[in-house]
């Protein structure tokens, strides 16, 4: 096969969808209206844990303009419990999308209404009477795991949704013999992606066609179709899911949870029903994430070489991390990847995932890779400090070396490629690390503003292939030659803003010698595309790009056979370039001519040789050459195919009087292998990083111990604004993956993985004169002052009256 020329892969092409999006002609789910459409509203539980004693909907049902009012009990006529999304040795509760006997979190839907307008539907909520018997609630992770805690599912006997652990090497011995043993407790709070477009769904059950059509804002239309069909026990081939433009996902839109409620209302009324989540509903229940505590023990030799890691993570998935969404799995990923980009001799990890009376837990940018990264990267900087090494030098001494790939990590994964030390070296240069440290030394103590710099390195395992889970292990796509020579790519991969509508055209254009304008990506309709799985786990550039590049190559090979047959020459000598199939130095046939010949003049029978199966289109299935679900001799499995990596730095100025942190500078060096579109890659780095900064500084769900969520609007749940963050510098290292077709790796999560650790390291560096150790995020000014107050030096300097 001839090698493809890289003309478009690597080009910063402007995105195809932008024209419609900048002119207001995008089409998001709520933009769609159909004749006869009703509007949904949901009555949600005001309590975190309560028994439902009675529900009286008679007054609501009597209202003019109200077409259906359904309780959880009513709904059982139409559906079963929510279908599980993941079950790898987990306890899967029997829960419904509308509460039946009990509510498990504040905001859980209890009654669903369909009415002529959204205004009427919301009015009608006021006419429903529910009697609750409030039960004791538990929200804190460790409290939920403690003996005697209130139980969400009494039949479980505890609040543990899953537990797992592994041990490799002589752990106890390593710790007994170590020169240094460091211990850390590092928690992280609960926050989420909170995309600007919340969830939205327009369901239409057509009884005369026995077909359910669901337009919804999802990252994974095929997965939603499966889950909806399973929840309703409805034939899946009679369900069509259409995902139009998506207003952000970040992992939060990977389930069929409340989306089944408009389906229910449509089944009950026979009319199309639209539900558009309000911001309050989104914050109450639109999938939350993070929320865990790590206990880490690290053994280090006196020359700064890591020896052993003994780690335990306690995760909090709220009321459930299996059916509402696949949140529980991220803590298993976290356990597998806590060794990070470093080498170890001994490793032990245990994970325990608790349910509690908070909203359900789903995926969010990182899916456990972030959870793995945070404690170790904070620990690395603190240990470097204790050992008298620079944080970069300590990391360098322990990185997997660039010549050691493929590298068998102690916890199971095989790292494909990388140059972690070079990423870090480039970062120090990009951010002018030494200059910052000099400036810090020169300015420290001269004012209340303390300068600090923190770094964090990361791994972004990409393309997870998780057994017994919707996050499965293959990708399938079709590349089709049209009669006029253009190409359609049909894929289950959803563009949710990451630009695959454009980047996939770049890939196919190179393979077939076309321009991206000759290619259109069709996605977002389960009845048009093969059963591909969607963008999650940064899998696009690992699974989907490989799948589509190979499909295009196979199509090209078939077309070469046809042309060779027509010209009576060798297919092996042909190339595809400039919109044509070319015999070097000789004949040329444009794809348009060829498409015409195949389809029409004279048609396939006249031009296709017998041994060519299908020159019109190729549907190709791609799976990982390296993932393995068969445990090795140590019981380890390999779920991820590529391992993008990177390092980043944050420079802060912390005001010791007010506790306010100003982010002065951010720099990222990323290695996602071969880059398809540099501008899009940098956009992902910027956006992901700022989301992480939000998590580090301001985003937090405030649950009290009764399970009341106090901040359900954007004035109390804060996001970074343009004034909160600086410009961001980016640079790249390119280590192609040997396991993907084009050497690409995933990207999109890595930049969100690093900021929390980098921020903590920066703040601790800035406040080193006070010996501050961050014990909680986000670092609001109040928290920073609380930390400073523990320092006698600070109290002497700043406390009024001290």
């Amino acid at each position, binding site marked *: 096969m001839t090698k493809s020329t890289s003309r478009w892969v690597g080009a910063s092409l*402007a*995105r195809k*969808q*932008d*024209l419609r*999006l*900048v*002119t*207001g*002609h*995008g*089409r*998001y789910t*709520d*933009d769609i*209206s159909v004749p006869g459409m009703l509007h949904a509203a949901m009555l949600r539980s005001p309590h975190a844990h309560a028994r439902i004693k009675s529900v009286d909907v008679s007054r609501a049902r009597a*209202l003019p303009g109200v077409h259906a009012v359904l309780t959880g009990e009513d709904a059982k006529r139409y559906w079963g419990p929510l279908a599980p999304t993941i079950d790898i040795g987990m306890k899967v509760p029997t829960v419904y999308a509308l509460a039946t006997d009990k509510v498990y979190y504040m905001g859980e839907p209890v009654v669903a209404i369909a009415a002529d307008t959204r*205004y*009427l539907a919301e*009015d009608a909520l*006021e006419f429903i009477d529910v009697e609750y018997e409030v039960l004791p609630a538990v929200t804190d992770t460790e409290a939920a795991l403690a003996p005697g805690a209130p139980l969400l599912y009494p039949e479980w006997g505890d609040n543990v949704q899953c537990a797992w652990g592994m041990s490799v090497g002589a752990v106890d011995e390593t710790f007994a013999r170590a020169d240094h043993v460091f211990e850390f407790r590092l928690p992280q709070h609960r926050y989420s992606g*909170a*995309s*600007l*477009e*919340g969830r939205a769904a327009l369901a239409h059950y057509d009884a005369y066609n026995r077909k359910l059509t669901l337009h919804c804002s999802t990252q994974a239309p095929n997965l939603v179709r499966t889950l909806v069909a399973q929840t309703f026990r409805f034939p899946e081939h009679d369900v069509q899911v259409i995902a139009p*433009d*998506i*207003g*952000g996902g*970040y992992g939060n839109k990977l389930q069929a949870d409340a989306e089944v409620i408009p389906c229910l209302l449509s089944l009950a009324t026979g009319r199309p029903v639209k539900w*558009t989540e*309000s*911001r309050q509903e989104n914050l109450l229940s639109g999938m939350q994430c993070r929320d865990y505590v790590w206990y880490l023990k690290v053994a280090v030799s006196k020359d700064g070489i890591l020896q052993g890691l003994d780690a335990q993570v306690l995760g909090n998935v709220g009321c459930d991390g299996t059916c509402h969404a696949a949140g529980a799995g991220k803590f298993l990923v976290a356990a597998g990847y806590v060794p990070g980009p470093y080498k170890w001799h001994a490793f032990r990890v245990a994970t325990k995932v608790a349910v509690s009376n908070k909203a359900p837990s789903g995926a969010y940018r990182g899916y456990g890779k972030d959870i793995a990264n945070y404690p170790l990267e904070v620990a690395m900087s603190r240990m470097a400090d204790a050992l008298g090494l620079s944080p970069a030098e300590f990391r360098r001494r322990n990185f997997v070396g660039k010549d050691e790939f493929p590298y068998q990590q102690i916890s199971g994964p095989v790292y494909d490629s990388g140059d972690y030390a070079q990423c870090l070296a480039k970062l120090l240069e990009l951010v002018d690390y030494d200059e910052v440290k000099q400036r810090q030394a020169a300015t420290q103590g001269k004012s209340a503003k303390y300068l600090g710099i923190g770094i964090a390195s990361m791994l972004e395992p990409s393309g997870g292939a998780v057994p017994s889970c919707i996050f499965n292990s293959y990708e399938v796509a079709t590349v089709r030659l049209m009669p006029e020579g253009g190409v359609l790519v049909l894929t289950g991969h959803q563009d*949710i*803003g*990451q*630009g695959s509508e454009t980047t996939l055209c770049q890939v196919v254009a190179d393979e077939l010698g076309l321009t991206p304008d000759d290619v259109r990506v069709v996605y977002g309709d389960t009845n048009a595309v093969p059963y591909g799985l969607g963008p999650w786990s940064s899998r696009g550039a690992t699974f989907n790009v490989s799948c589509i590049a190979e499909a295009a190559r196979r199509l090209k090979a078939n077309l070469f056979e046809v042309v060779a047959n027509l010209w009576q020459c060798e297919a092996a000598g042909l190339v595809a370039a400039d919109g044509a199939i070319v015999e070097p130095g000789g004949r040329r046939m444009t794809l348009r001519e060829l498409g015409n010949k195949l389809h029409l003049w004279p048609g396939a029978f006249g031009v296709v040789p017998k041994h060519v199966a299908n020159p019109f289109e190729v549907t190709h299935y791609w799976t990982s050459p390296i993932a393995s679900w068969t445990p090795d001799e140590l019981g380890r499995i390999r779920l991820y195919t590529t391992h993008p990596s990177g390092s980043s730095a944050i420079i802060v100025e912390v005001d010791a009087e007010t506790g306010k942190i100003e982010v002065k500078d951010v720099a990222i060096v990323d290695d996602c292998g071969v880059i398809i579109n540099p*501008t*899009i890659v*940098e*956009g*992902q780095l*910027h*956006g*992901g*990083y*700022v*989301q992480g900064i939000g998590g580090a500084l301001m985003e937090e769900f405030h649950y009290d111990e009764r399970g009341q969520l106090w901040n359900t*609007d*954007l*004035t109390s749940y804060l*996001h*970074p*604004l*343009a*004034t909160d*963050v600086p*410009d*961001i510098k980016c640079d790249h290292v390119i280590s192609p993956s040997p396991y993907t077709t084009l050497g690409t790796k995933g990207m999109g999560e890595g930049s969100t993985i690093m900021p929390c650790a980098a921020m903590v390291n920066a703040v601790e560096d800035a406040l080193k004169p006070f010996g501050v150790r961050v014990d909680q995020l986000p670092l609001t000014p109040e928290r920073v002052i609380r930390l400073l107050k523990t320092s006698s030096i600070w109290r002497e300097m700043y406390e009024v009256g001290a």
Partner: protein
Amino acid sequence: MNEAAMKAIRVTTSVNGTSYTRAVEPRLLLSDFLRNELGLTGTHVGCEHGKCGACTVLVGGRAVRACLMFAVQAEGKSVETIEGLAAGADALHPIQRAFIDCHGLQCGFCTPGMINSTRALLAANPAPTDQEIRAGLAGNICRCTGYVNIVKAVRQAANEMRTTAAPEGVSK
């Protein structure tokens, strides 16, 4: 249910230069009026409580949040939405061009609001510094881009709009 809320009131307003008269409930939000009554779905709703800026439109040339205004308050006013900005798919406004050129959008949900805030910002300050751009857009949340390329886009648009003859008359 509030009976008064149900009684329709006539409202006449000009949207993107076309005059519309509709009978609406007094409680109907301008954002819902534009989206559902007029089918102008380019105005997005991200919070419905005035914080995210996705619904930003121009009313009388000033940037306002359509979710914080009732449709009846637009009586006699001139409203400009994102749909009115370009004369056609091949006639983009420099701000729209710049958002594309600079990759100032990802999911695009914040984009119409961002662009309308930018129109108001550049009308008031045709040569903003980066800091002024950030301050001018601090009422618009973007969850995707980290703002870096949005600032870049506004900078490009400002430069272009200063060097070409005033392409549109956003009044101050």
